[in-house]
């Protein structure tokens, strides 16, 4: 009976267009925000932070980015892993060359560097689409990773070929490096997630977002009604890469601490983020959250169930996980092509009417 829009009168356009038009949703959103800022930091321990919460927050950003490209603009990309690597390596180069620079600024600048690279590899999208474009983005994936593992300048000629994050502080509190506490890392990620989700939501419902969706639904028709495909596709690539780049920067900077391009940002990363977007829901901000949460939590649950309870070796559990993820992708595409977000939409419709059938 709580979930009602009756009596919730809108008296201005802005209130009619708000993200959460239903009072209950709005309240839930603020409660969730307050919970994640005020309660979670006190509950957080190292195990939870490292196995679920922090990867979840980082992958939400990556999934948001890829969702903008695939879900909103309809351009399939298999190069997410490489773009994350660009973000990570940009962070490394910037922060080692200019140690005085505030670390959050470094993360954002890395996003811009990735956006530039993304636009470069997005150029073919003006001419090709669909799986042709997917192959073109595979070129980005393999070429960039090769570049990062071969050219010494990118990893400052370190003997191992790895990049490792030096300690950086915000207001005197270390947020990167070994000394960073789980809570500091959590807050760094959370601030970025909230800011970028807000950005994604407002971009996708604004003018830019509509041109993206027009291109997605039918590019030729969109062109005829006056959408400039050059601007629409390249902005989608730029914004998407910006998000993915920041996610890569965070993954390397605050989570992994040390990384090697081929290991940490291989093609499997690209698929992982793609699966998050498909399972969560193409073209949905909420879907990016749900998809990332699902694919981060699933391996943890499987590990608890199979390795710790039944006593399977870890590699078997890993194979079963791969198999389940594959089956889930097919299942989601068959049963609900718009992913978990669409399931939530259906539930919402039912909730509005409940307990009356019509």
């Amino acid at each position, binding site marked *: 009976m709580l979930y009602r829009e009756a009596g919730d009168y809108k008296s201005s356009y802005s209130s009619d267009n708000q993200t959460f038009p239903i009072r209950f949703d709005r309240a839930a959103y603020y409660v969730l925000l307050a919970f994640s800022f005020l309660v979670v930091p006190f509950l957080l321990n190292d195990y939870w932070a490292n196995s679920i919460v922090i990867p979840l927050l980082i992958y939400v950003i990556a999934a948001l980015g890829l969702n903008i490209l695939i879900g909103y603009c309809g351009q399939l990309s298999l190069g997410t892993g490489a773009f994350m690597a660009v973000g990570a390596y940009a962070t490394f180069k910037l922060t080692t060359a200019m140690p005085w620079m505030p670390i959050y600024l470094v993360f954002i600048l890395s996003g811009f560097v990735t956006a530039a690279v993304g636009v470069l590899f997005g150029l073919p999208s003006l001419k090709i689409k669909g799986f042709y474009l997917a192959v073109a983005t*595979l070129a980005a994936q393999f070429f960039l990773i090769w570049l990062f593992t071969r050219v010494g300048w990118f990893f400052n000629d370190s003997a191992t070929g790895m990049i490792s994050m030096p300690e950086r502080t915000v207001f005197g509190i270390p947020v990167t490096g070994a000394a960073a506490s789980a809570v500091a890392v959590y807050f760094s990620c959370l601030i970025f997630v909230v800011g970028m989700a807000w950005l994604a939501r407002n971009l996708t419902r604004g003018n830019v977002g509509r041109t993206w969706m027009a291109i997605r639904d039918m590019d030729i028709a969109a062109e005829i009604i006056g959408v400039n495909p050059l601007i629409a596709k390249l902005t989608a690539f730029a914004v998407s890469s910006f998000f993915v780049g920041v996610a890569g920067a965070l993954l390397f900077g605050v989570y992994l601490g040390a990384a090697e391009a081929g290991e940490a940002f291989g093609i499997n990363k690209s698929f992982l983020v793609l699966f998050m977007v498909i399972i969560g829901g193409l073209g949905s901000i909420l879907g990016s959250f749900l998809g990332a949460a699902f694919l981060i939590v699933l391996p943890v649950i499987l590990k608890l169930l199979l390795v710790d309870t039944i006593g399977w070796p870890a590699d078997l559990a890993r194979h079963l996980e791969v198999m389940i993820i594959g089956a889930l992708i097919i299942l989601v595409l068959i049963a609900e092509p718009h992913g978990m977000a669409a399931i939530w939409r259906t539930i919402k419709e039912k909730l509005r009417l409940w307990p009356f059938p019509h």
Partner: protein
Amino acid sequence: MSETVLFAFEAALNGLSVGIMYSLVALGFVLIFKASGIFNFAQGVMALFAALTLVGFQEGAVPFAHVINATFGTSVHDFGFNMPTLIAIPAAVAVMVLLAWLVERIVLKHLVNQEPIILFMATIGLAYFLEGLGDLMWGAEVKRLDVGIPQGGNVWFEENTQWLGFGNENFWGFYIDTLNLYAIVIAAILVAALVIFSQYTKQGRALRAVADDHQAALSVGISLRFIWVLTWSIAGIVALVAGIMWGSKSGVQFSLSLIALKALPVLILGGFTSIPGAIVGGLLIGVGEKLFDYFMQPIIGGATENWFAYMLALAFLLFRPQGLFGEKIIERV
């Protein structure tokens, strides 16, 4: 002749034989794409799965042995007999046909009329599923596959090409693996068989009709679903052949499915709808990447094979998106 030229030739020759392998995988892609408009990302993993199954049959391994052992604390490994290759290969073919039937039943049937991109993503899911299934069923360790194809440098070929050196003392003839020579012959036989099948049999004609126009084919009474099972079965058999060749060459392991990713740029070069295109594209990519690596290694370092094919395809896409032999892409609102 100077050594640079000779060694470049040898690199190109090796490229040709690698290219044949790419072509074999690409062939499977083209078959499915023509018949059902599905871009089957799982083709590479199908090759891996087929090869794994074949090795499993040959060794008489118990399927899911690792899982059984881990769950019940037993230590089963194999049935204690080796299946002769001549029986194991038809058995693996049967598994691939069964797989094709299951894919049609469980996946494709429900995705009719979906956008190509949805189907493409479904095959990515299928690829993951098969990869996990293959590893769970037969174990993830690298396996040796031996179906009786001779391996090692080919002496005959080396001796008979020595004269090409024209008195150059450092040149002993071109080195080529016997296995690669067999691969070329097998690929030729496979393509010939496919051509004969599609030109001269009833099913083959039906297959071409479906490739040409789904609805027209349906209206003259061709069963679309049967044709799909048929094409996926053929693609499965092609995958098995590719799996056998790659597997004999470098062992059956996960990297097989990554190498198979290279079939994608091959298709872009050759065109998605052309069987000769798949062959020519594969050869071009194979030769191109070996030569590029040979000439560029001193300048930009090795392992360019990882990305050369994709970059070539990318450059190609900008000028001729339909590929060398593909049909012209026409778009309407």
